[in-house]
């Protein structure tokens, strides 16, 4: 048997029982590798459960900096007897199994092609601690110590992290440090180092390790949001919770201690979006955060916001669907239900952040876009970006930037006699002027309604006025194409007739996969879509290629449907690459699927033409 021997390039997976206190120890493992200057890509794979069900934490130690999952496991830390068989099966040939050897496990439960490292964790804990809770909690820190010894993680790094974590709680710090040393010393005394090594590098720089929900919430603060109405739903709840946390730090009037924000936990998603619409109608930047089921509930109100032209920002952290689906798994399956949300002819602006940094940027920009376009704007996160920590470039902010409140007619303009028609297209861009309620005693007042109206907001059932208004809304959507974040296009190293399109969290696996494919001779031009409606460049990109792979995380190829529908392209050109089992995409999956389809569709690299 040849054991895997790799430095700073391997996958460790922790198999734990939910609620056993493992998250803290596993998180320390990832952070320790980062502190040694080596990038990680970490994924928490968790059940819809508070205590007792299986949960995994996967840490990819990856000096090359890839941010997606690779696929496969090199070292399994098997702490959950219930999932033993599947965990052992997942280990790569030549890989390693670390387990609790207190109770004997029959040899049939192991594999011959892996290296097994058994440590009597329970026995050590029972000898050391008398309290049941301590026995449980410190077991995690003890295996962290053992792993540090096995993989060469510098103990001082972990001790520094522990000191930061338990700052001001010295007794806790001391007991954690002791447990850590217990594991480290045991490993040093009893184990040979394994073939997987972490070695200090300087590849992390000033990048930050952050989750997208936290970043999006900070974006909402920087975007000037003052009203947040929400209803708890996984995986979006931490957007509102993080907004509250950021506001407590950044939005409390220092002189009075009073809040420059309001956060309401509503009775349901219908009320959340209602409050957002009320707040936005009244001139306060307002948002909600939800997931697929919440989007379904909000449909009627979203149609009202579209037709009455009210800015509203909706963070949709997508999860496994339909129905309750897989609440703690990731998907990109709300595209169609958001793009065309509500009854009747509606189209909405969607933004697709690829990582937490873009969650921050688009989280802020969404409010400018919503105000500028006077329409709902969806920021389409998914669980993979929203709830996982990603290594991102540090966030930046241009202090000269100002909030763009869009076309708002002031009391002075009204007083000066400027013609005000709430739905009057004065600039030819489809965007009318609005007034905030209460602006002027005599002018600028109007009635907001979901029923049809004329250019001056007067109720009418006249078909011509209705069509006039609906056409203007289309013009406004055209204007949106130029205002939303543009797609990012990159050419392959060699000329090619084939391309790939993706969006959102899929980018993490794509970046790596394209490099692997290129090494195999499959060269693809690439376009990352960042928003809907699609800029003209999207249709041009597709037109410029014979075959385009559309990679997305849903069953029905929803982005492909949008492309066919909105760009009028030949569906035969768009080859769907679909991943929807709820787990974050892996490089291996994408590479395998594209390679297979490339053969099937005879997508060969363009031959070099002599000039």
């Amino acid at each position: 048997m040849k054991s895997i021997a790799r430095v700073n390039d391997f996958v460790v997976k922790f198999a734990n029982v939910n609620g056993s206190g493992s998250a803290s120890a596993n998180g320390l493992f990832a952070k320790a590798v980062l502190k040694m200057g080596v990038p990680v890509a970490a994924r928490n794979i968790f059940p819809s459960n508070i205590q007792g069900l299986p949960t995994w934490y996967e840490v990819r130690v990856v000096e090359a900096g890839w941010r997606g999952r690779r696929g496969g496991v090199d070292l399994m830390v098997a702490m959950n007897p219930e999932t033993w068989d599947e965990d052992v099966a997942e280990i790569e040939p030549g890989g390693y199994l670390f387990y609790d050897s207190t109770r004997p496990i029959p040899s049939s439960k192991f594999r011959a092609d892996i290296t097994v490292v058994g440590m009597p964790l329970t026995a050590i804990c029972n000898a050391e601690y008398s309290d049941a809770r301590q026995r449980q909690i410190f077991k995690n820190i003890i295996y962290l110590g053992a792993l540090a010894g096995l993989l060469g993680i510098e103990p001082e790094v972990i001790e520094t992290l522990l000191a930061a974590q338990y700052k001001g709680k010295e007794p806790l710090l001391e007991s954690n440090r002791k447990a850590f040393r217990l594991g480290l010393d045991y490993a040093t005394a009893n184990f040979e180092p394994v073939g997987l090594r972490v070695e200090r590098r300087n590849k992390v720089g000033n990048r930050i390790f952050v989750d997208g929900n936290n970043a999006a919430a900070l974006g909402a603060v920087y975007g000037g949001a003052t009203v947040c109405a929400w209803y708890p739903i996984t995986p979006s709840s931490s957007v509102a919770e993080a907004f509250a946390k950021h506001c407590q730090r950044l939005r409390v009037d220092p002189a009075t201690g009073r809040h420059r924000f309001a956060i309401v936990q509503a009775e349901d998603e219908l009320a959340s979006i209602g409050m957002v619409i009320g707040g936005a109608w009244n001139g306060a930047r307002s948002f909600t955060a939800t997931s697929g089921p919440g989007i379904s509930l909000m449909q009627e109100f979203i149609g009202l916001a579209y037709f009455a032209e009210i800015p509203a920002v909706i963070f949709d952290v997508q999860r496994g669907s339909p129905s309750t689906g897989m609440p703690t798994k990731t998907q990109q399956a709300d595209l169609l239900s958001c793009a065309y949300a509500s009854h009747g002819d509606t189209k909405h602006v969607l933004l697709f952040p690829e990582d937490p940094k873009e969650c921050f940027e688009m989280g802020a920009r969404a409010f400018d876009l919503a105000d500028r376009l006077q329409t709902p704007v969806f920021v389409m996160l998914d669980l993979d970006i929203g709830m996982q920590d990603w290594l991102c470039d540090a966030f930046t902010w241009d202090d000269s930037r100002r909030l763009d409140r869009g076309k708002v007619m002031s009391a002075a303009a009204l007083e000066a006699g400027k013609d005000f028609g709430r739905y009057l297209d004065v600039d030819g861009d489809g965007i009318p002027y609005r007034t905030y309620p209460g602006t002027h005693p005599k002018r600028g007042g109007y009635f907001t309604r979901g029923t049809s109206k004329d250019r001056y907001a007067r109720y009418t059932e006249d078909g011509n006025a209705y069509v006039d208004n609906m056409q203007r809304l289309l013009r406004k959507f055209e204007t949106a194409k130029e205002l939303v974040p543009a797609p990012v296009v990159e050419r392959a190293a060699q000329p090619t007739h084939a391309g790939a399109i993706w969006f959102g969290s899929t980018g993490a696996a794509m970046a790596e996969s394209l490099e692997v494919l290129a090494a195999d001779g499959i060269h693809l031009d690439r376009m990352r879509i960042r928003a809907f409606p699609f800029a003209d460049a999207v249709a041009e990109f597709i037109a410029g290629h014979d075959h385009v792979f559309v990679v997305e995380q849903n069953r029905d190829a929803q982005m492909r449907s949008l492309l066919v529908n909105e760009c009028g392209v030949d569906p035969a050109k768009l080859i769907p690459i679909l991943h929807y089992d709820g787990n974050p995409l892996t490089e291996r999956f994408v590479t395998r699927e594209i390679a297979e389809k490339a053969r099937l569709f005879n997508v060969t690299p363009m031959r070099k033409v002599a000039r």
Partner: protein
Amino acid sequence: MTYLTKPKLHHPALPTNALGLTRRDYEGAVSTLCAGCGHDSISAAIIQAFYELAIEPHRVAKLSGIGCSSKTPTYFLGAGHGFNSVHGRMPSVLTGAALANRDLIYLGVSGDGDSASIGLGQFAHVMRRGVNMVYIVENNGVYGLTKGQFSATADKGSKAKRGAVNSDEPIDLVQLALVLGASFVARGFSGDKGQLVPLIKAAVAHGGAAFIDVVSPCVAFNNHPGSTKSYDYVRAHNEAVNRLDFMPLREAITANVAPGEVESVVLHDGGTLRLRKLHPEYDPHDKVGALSYLEAHRAKGEVVTGLLYVDDDPTDLHAAQNTVAAPLNALGDAELVPGSAALQKFNAALA
């Protein structure tokens, strides 16, 4: 068409209020409801109340849901902004609007179909939160726009126009509002403007969640014998517990009333409510008493009207939120955007 214009000319000698505005300045478009609809009387009472209070019409935000009653905000305070939202969901829109700008007056207008069925959840929660508003339900016991189906406030045993008998228990929004924490709860009758106008004025002055249930007969579908929401029935069974005079700040109390019959309630803004008690034993500060009184009279088929409960020292959602004194919608970049220095701290904590 609900946007018919009225002639703007009016008699030069029309009386004016403290702002120099006439009652006409508080009107809206011509109503398109049926002639004799109770809702039009309520609109007239709203116009009268705001005129007498001398509140600038454009400082009132009028919000409604869907239904006959929800159409009425077009018919009063034409200079104010209105929002005709979706069925039963006005309370959430109003809540968001109230959060955005605490300086406007929020008037929610709804009906029994809008608030007692699809809107019951939002009705409950807007009361719980103590949103500073006046919430009026124009209660006729039927769905008018869809031609006469029972609503959830129709009394058990009452008859529809075509003879169907309602077999479901009614929802009493007044009792619900009391239980859910509304700090001002009243019931009026669209046929008694003298009672209704002061109730609306007092509700506007109240600094918390104020709810007024106004029984408002539907002349088209629910004004026949066998209905318990008809003009005749309500006139015969109206059990008014008090009459109200609303005295704005610093106005002298001049009316002569016998001692013991009048209770003065000082409002948070310094104004005064004067209650002329019609039933000396009824205490509008006693929530439990109010509930049992309402239930006892409901059993007798009587409609209890008047100011049923008031908390003299209410709080509201903004107090609970501890929001700044300035409206949130008036805060600018300097107050809202933390800037790059704060962002560097955020980055440093995660590096």
